[in-house]
C-alpha cells in the first residue's frame, strides 16, 4: 500500500494539481478587477467551499471585447478564473460557449476533446485526480455561462 513508487506518484500528482502555470495565475492574476460598464455580470458561488467568483463581460457585436473577474477562494478557483478570462477575451460569444463546453468536458474526463483548442487550460486537467477540487476549477466557467446567458 505504501512504498517509494507510490510516494513518488503522489508527489507527481501534487505537482500535477498545482502546475507551474496554475501557480503563475494564482500569484499574478490576469483581468482581476471590475469593468466600468459591463454588458453582463454574474456572481458564482461554491457553497461547499465558500469560493466566490464574479465574472463581468463587455460584449460588442457578439464578441467579448473585455472581461474581468473578482473573487475569493482557493488557488484552483482563482487561477482557473484568471485563465478563463485570458482564454475568452476577444472570442465570439459562440466560441466562448464552445470553449466552456470543452473545458467542462475535460474536467468530467470525457474523451474526444480538442486539447489543442484548450491550450493552457489543459494544465487544469490534473485537478480531476482530486475529485473534491473539480468544482473549484469549473466555478469560473459556470459563472461565465451564466453571464453569457444574460446577454440577449
Amino acid at each position, binding site marked *: *500500500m*505504501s*512504498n*517509494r513508487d*507510490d*510516494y513518488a506518484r*503522489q*508527489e507527481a500528482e*501534487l505537482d500535477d*494539481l*498545482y502546475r507551474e502555470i496554475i*501557480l503563475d495565475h*494564482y*500569484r499574478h492574476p490576469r483581468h482581476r478587477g471590475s469593468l466600468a460598464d459591463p454588458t453582463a455580470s454574474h456572481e458564482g458561488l461554491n457553497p*461547499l*467551499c*465558500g*469560493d*466566490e467568483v464574479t465574472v463581468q463581460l463587455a460584449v460588442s457585436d457578439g464578441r467579448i471585447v473585455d472581461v474581468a473577474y473578482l473573487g*475569493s*477562494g*482557493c*488557488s*484552483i478557483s482563482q487561477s482557473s478564473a484568471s485563465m478563463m478570462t485570458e482564454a475568452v477575451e476577444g472570442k465570439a460569444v459562440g466560441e466562448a460557449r464552445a470553449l466552456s463546453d470543452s473545458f467542462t468536458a475535460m474536467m468530467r474526463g470525457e474523451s474526444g476533446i480538442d486539447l489543442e483548442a484548450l491550450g493552457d487550460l489543459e494544465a487544469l486537467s490534473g485537478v480531476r485526480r*482530486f475529485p473534491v*477540487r473539480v468544482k*473549484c476549477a469549473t466555478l469560473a466557467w459556470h459563472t461565465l455561462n451564466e453571464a453569457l446567458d444574460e446577454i440577449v
Partner: protein
Amino acid sequence: MGLDVARIRKDFPILERQVYGKPLVYLDNAATSQKPRRVIDALVRYYEQHNANIHRAVHCLGEEATAAYEEARDKVSAFVNSASRECIVFTRNTTEAINLVAYTWGRANIGEGDEIILTQMEHHSNLIPWQRLAVERGASIRYIGLTGEQTLDLPDPDHLFGQRTKLIAMPHVSNSMGTINPIEEIAQEARKRGVTFLVDGAQGAPHLAVDMQAIGCDFYAFSSHKMLGPTGVGVLYARRDLLDEMEPFLGGGEMIRKVTLDGATWNDLPWKFEAGTPNIADVIAFGAAIDYLTDLGMDNVREHEIEVIGYALDSLRKLGDITLYGPSDPRNRGGVVSFNYGDLHPHDVGTILDRHGVAVRAGHHCTQPLMRELGVSGTARASFYIYNTREEVDVLIDALKAARDFFSE
C-alpha cells in the same frame, strides 16, 4: 497523571497505517475520532456471537443482545452522571437528537411570538432545526454575539432572557473554534426563569468530564463516533419530566405499549423514543468506547488535551503570519485549533498537509454564519484527541512551512 499516549496509540490499528508514504497524523478528530481495537472487537463479537433483535425475543441470543444493548445505556448514563437510565435515548447522531427535541418538545412548547436564543457559533445541526421550527410556529430567534476572542458576548442575564424566551440552545464546545461555553451558569439562569436549555454536546462529551446533574441543563445531545465509538449512534439526555410530557418523535414498533385499530399508547421511557429496530451493534460497541474512556479517566483525557493543544497553539504562534481563532488559553478551549495561515486558502493548506500525511479539516465546518461573522470563507482546523502527540504537532508545523514555500515565489 496524564495519559500513556505511546500505549494508547497501540490500541488504534489505523494509526499504524501510512498515507502517501508518510505516517498518518490524524488531526480531524472533531469530525470523527478513530476507534480502538476494543470497540472494533465488540462489533465483531456481537455479530459473531450474539446477533439477534432485542426486547421481544424469547431465545438466548435475543436475551444476550438485549442485555448488552441496555448495559450500554447504563454505561452512557453513568458516564454523564444522568439521574437515571430512562433519561438516555439513543438516536442516530447528535443532529437527530436535536431534531427530536425540536419536533416534539419544540412543537408543543414554542408558539407564535415566542423566542429562541441561539449563538453565532452554532453548528448547522443546532441551527436549522430551530430555524425551521421558528418559521413553522411564527417564533423568532435571537443570537448571542461573540467577543474578540470568540467567546460568547453574554449580556447581564436580565438582558439576555426576554419575556417570551422559551428556549436557549448552544454548543458546549464550539466545533469551529474550540471555545468552551459557560453552560453551568447559563443553566442556572435559564432555570430561574423557566427557560428550557439545550446543549449541543457533540464536542463536549468526548473531551470534558460531563455531569448532567451538575450542569443542570434540560437537554444534552452528543455522538458516539466523536468519542471512539462507531458512527450511527447518538445520545439525547433529557430531564425525565420533559421526556414524560413529550410526544413520541417517530412512530412504529418498539415505541408502543398497546396498539388497536383506533390508536395506541406509548411504551415506557426511554423506549417511547426509540421506534423500530435500533442500531444494536453500534450501541453495544459504543458501550466499549465508554469503558475505554472511563478506564483512561476523563480528567486525564482533558489534561492531555490541554497539554498538546497548548503546544500546538505555541508552535503555530511561533510560525508567524498565523491567525488563530478562539480563546488563547488552552484551559478555556476544547480539542479544536482553528487557524488561517497568511493568505493561503484553507483548502490549499488542507491539500498540501494531506500529502504530508496530516489530516485536517478545511472549510466552514458547518458553521457558515460564524465564518461570515469572522469575515473568512473558512479556516483550517486541527483537532486533537487522546492519541495525538507533540511530535505530530511538529509534523503539522513542518507541513505548513512546506505549504508556504510551495505557494510563495
